[in-house]
C-alpha cells in the first residue's frame, strides 16, 4: 500500500461529493476554455499579422477609398519591397448569414505579399489569367463543398449587381493562425464594371499593403508614405499590419476585457469549489490525521496526503474539462454565424493556462486544510468528533 493509493481512496471516500466537485471543475474549465478561445479568436488577425507589412488607408476613415495612382509613388519609397492593394467587396453569397471576407485584390501581387496563403502555382497562373476567377480558402471550399471550376454567384451591395466568379484556386493556410475562409478575386474585374456603370467610383482602392525590407524601419517608411500625400484630396494613414488589425479589435476592447476578467473569475470559482471540498474532508479527518501523527507519520506525510488529494481532484476535473472543451468548442463554432470567427482554435496557451490554473487551485485549496491538520495537537485531534 502506497501513499498514492491512500490519496486515491481518500478522494473517493465521499464519491458523490468528489464526483460533483470534479464535474464542477470540469464545467468551469470548459467555460474558461471557451472564453479564452473566443478572446484569442477575436485577436487572431492581430496575432497572424506580419511584421514586414504596412497598411495604408484613407486618413479620415477606412471606408473612404484611395486613388489607384498612389501605388507607383509608394513603390518608389526606399525600403518598400512590394505593394499590393485591395477593396472590401461585401456582397451576399447564398444568403446574408453566409459571412466570409470577400476582397477584390491585385491578382498579380496579392499572393506575393501573403506567403501564408499556400496556393499551387498552376492554380495561381490560371487565376491571374482569367479575369472572372477567384481563389478561396480551403475552409471555405469545405464549408460550401466547392471545387476548382465551380461557379460562385454574388449579389453586390457596395458594388451593386450580380457577380459570377469561377473558382480557379484553393489556398491552404500555412498554419493554424492563418484564416482559410477568405475569397479573393480580380480588382480589375470590379474596376472595369465600375468604369461602365459608375465611372466616379472607378480607379479607387480600399487600402494598400506594403511589404518593407526592414521591419525596424516601419515607422520611418509609414511617415514617408503619409508625407507623400499630405494636403492631397485623400490623405493617408499608414501603420503596421498589427496596429491596423488592433484597430478593429479595439472597437470590441471592453467586451474582450470583460471576457478576460470573467475567465479568471472562473478560476476563483474553481478555487472555492475545491477549497470547500478539501476543508470539509480535512475537518472530517481531524482524528485520522491525529492517528497518523501518533503512528509516527511526519508533517510531510500529512502535507502529501492533503495536497495529493486536492491536486488529484483539481487535475482530474481539469483534464475532464479540457477533454470536453474540444467538442464543446467545435459545437459552439458550428452554431455561431459562419465566418464570424475565421480562426477558432483552442490555443496551446489556453490548455497550459487551464492546466496550470488547476495545479495552482489544487495547491491553494490545500493550504488551509494543511495548516489546520498540522496545527492541531495530537491530543486535541484524538478528541475531535467529526
Amino acid at each position, binding site marked *: *500500500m502506497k501513499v498514492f493509493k491512500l490519496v486515491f481512496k481518500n478522494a473517493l471516500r465521499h464519491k458523490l461529493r468528489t464526483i460533483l466537485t470534479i464535474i464542477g471543475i470540469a464545467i468551469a474549465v470548459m467555460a474558461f476554455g471557451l472564453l479564452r478561445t473566443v478572446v484569442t479568436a477575436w485577436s487572431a488577425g492581430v496575432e497572424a499579422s506580419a511584421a514586414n507589412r504596412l497598411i495604408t488607408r484613407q486618413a479620415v476613415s477606412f471606408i473612404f477609398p484611395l486613388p489607384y495612382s498612389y501605388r507607383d509613388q509608394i513603390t518608389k519609397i526606399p525600403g518598400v519591397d512590394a505593394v499590393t492593394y485591395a477593396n472590401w467587396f461585401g456582397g451576399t453569397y447564398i444568403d446574408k448569414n453566409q459571412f466570409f471576407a470577400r476582397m477584390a485584390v491585385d491578382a498579380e501581387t496579392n499572393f506575393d505579399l501573403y506567403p501564408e496563403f499556400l496556393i499551387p502555382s498552376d492554380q495561381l497562373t490560371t487565376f491571374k489569367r482569367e479575369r472572372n476567377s477567384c481563389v478561396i480558402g480551403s475552409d471555405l471550399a469545405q464549408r460550401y463543398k466547392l471545387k476548382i471550376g465551380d461557379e460562385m454567384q454574388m449579389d453586390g451591395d457596395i458594388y451593386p449587381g450580380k457577380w459570377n466568379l469561377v473558382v480557379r484556386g484553393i489556398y491552404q493556410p500555412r498554419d493554424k493562425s492563418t484564416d482559410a475562409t477568405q475569397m479573393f478575386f480580380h480588382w480589375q474585374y470590379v474596376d472595369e464594371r465600375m468604369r461602365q456603370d459608375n465611372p466616379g467610383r472607378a480607379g479607387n482602392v480600399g487600402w494598400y499593403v506594403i511589404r518593407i525590407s526592414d521591419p525596424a524601419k516601419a515607422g520611418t517608411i509609414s511617415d514617408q508614405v503619409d508625407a507623400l500625400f499630405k494636403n492631397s484630396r485623400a490623405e493617408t494613414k499608414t501603420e503596421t499590419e498589427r496596429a491596423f488589425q488592433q484597430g478593429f479589435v479595439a472597437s470590441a476592447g471592453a467586451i474582450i476585457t470583460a471576457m478576460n476578467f470573467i475567465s479568471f473569475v472562473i478560476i476563483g470559482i474553481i478555487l472555492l469549489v475545491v477549497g470547500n471540498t478539501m476543508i470539509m474532508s480535512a475537518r472530517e479527518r481531524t482524528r485520522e490525521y491525529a492517528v497518523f501523527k501518533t503512528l509516527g507519520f*511526519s508533517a510531510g506525510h500529512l502535507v502529501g496526503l492533503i495536497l495529493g488529494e486536492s491536486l488529484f481532484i483539481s487535475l482530474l476535473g481539469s483534464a475532464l474539462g479540457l477533454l470536453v472543451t474540444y467538442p464543446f468548442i467545435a459545437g459552439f463554432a458550428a452554431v455561431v454565424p459562419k465566418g464570424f470567427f475565421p480562426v477558432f482554435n483552442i490555443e496551446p496557451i489556453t490548455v497550459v493556462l487551464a492546466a496550470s490554473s488547476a495545479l495552482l487551485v489544487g495547491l491553494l485549496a490545500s493550504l488551509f486544510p494543511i495548516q489546520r491538520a498540522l496545527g492541531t495537537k495530537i491530543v486535541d485531534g484524538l478528541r475531535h468528533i467529526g
Partner: protein
Amino acid sequence: MDPIIQVQAVSKSYWRDSFEIPVLNNISFDIPAGEYLALMGPSGSGKTTLLNLIAGIDRPNKGQISVAGTNIGSLNESQLAKWRSTHVGFIFQFYNLIPVLTAYENVELPLLLTSLSKKERRQHVETALTVVGLQDRMQHYPKQLSGGQEQRVAIARAITTDPTILVADEPTGDLDKNSADEILTLLERLNTEFHKTIVMVTHDPRAAEKARVVRHLDKGEFKRS
C-alpha cells in the same frame, strides 16, 4: 529489573481561556521492562494525560520522561514522530482504524515508515494479524468487522513494528463483555508470552485485574495503595 520508563517530577496543566487547570502534579515513578501496569482513577484524574506523555504525543510542563534511555522531552517534533514509530504501539478506546483501508493495510501503515521491503512488511502484518487471531479477515474493511475485531486489528497495528512499549487508553471501553474479555486476554498474552511492556488506562476493575500492577491517580497525584 531496570526501569524501561522513568517519569521524574512531571507536572502538566492545560489552559482554558485564562484559567490554568492543573492535571498532573509532580508525578514520579518507574516502570520496569515487561511490566503490565494499569492506571486507574476517576475522570479528570490525569491518567490519560499521563499515558499521552509517556507515549510522546504530549509534552509535560515540568519534569522529564525517559523511555528505553531516551529523554523524550529533548526530541523535536520530527524526532519525536520517528521515535514514536519505533518505540510506541498505541491502542485507542475507539480503535481509530482508517476506514478506507483493509485490516491488512491498517496494520501495514506503521511499517510504511520503516525500510522493510514489501515482502518483509507482508510477513510482519501476517504475523501480527495471526497473533490477534484475524488472519482470515485481512481483506476486510473496518466496517465489515465487529467492535472486538476492530480492536484486535488496532492491537495488531500497535504490535506490528515490535515497539518497546504498548500504551492502551481504555482498550475495552467501547466493547461488550465478551469482546472485552478477548482483548484483555490478548493483552495479557502479549505481556506474558511476548514480554511486552504495557501501560493501560482503564475505568474497568475487571480490566485492571488482568494487570500485574495497578496504580490509582486522583487529582493529578498517585494515591497510596
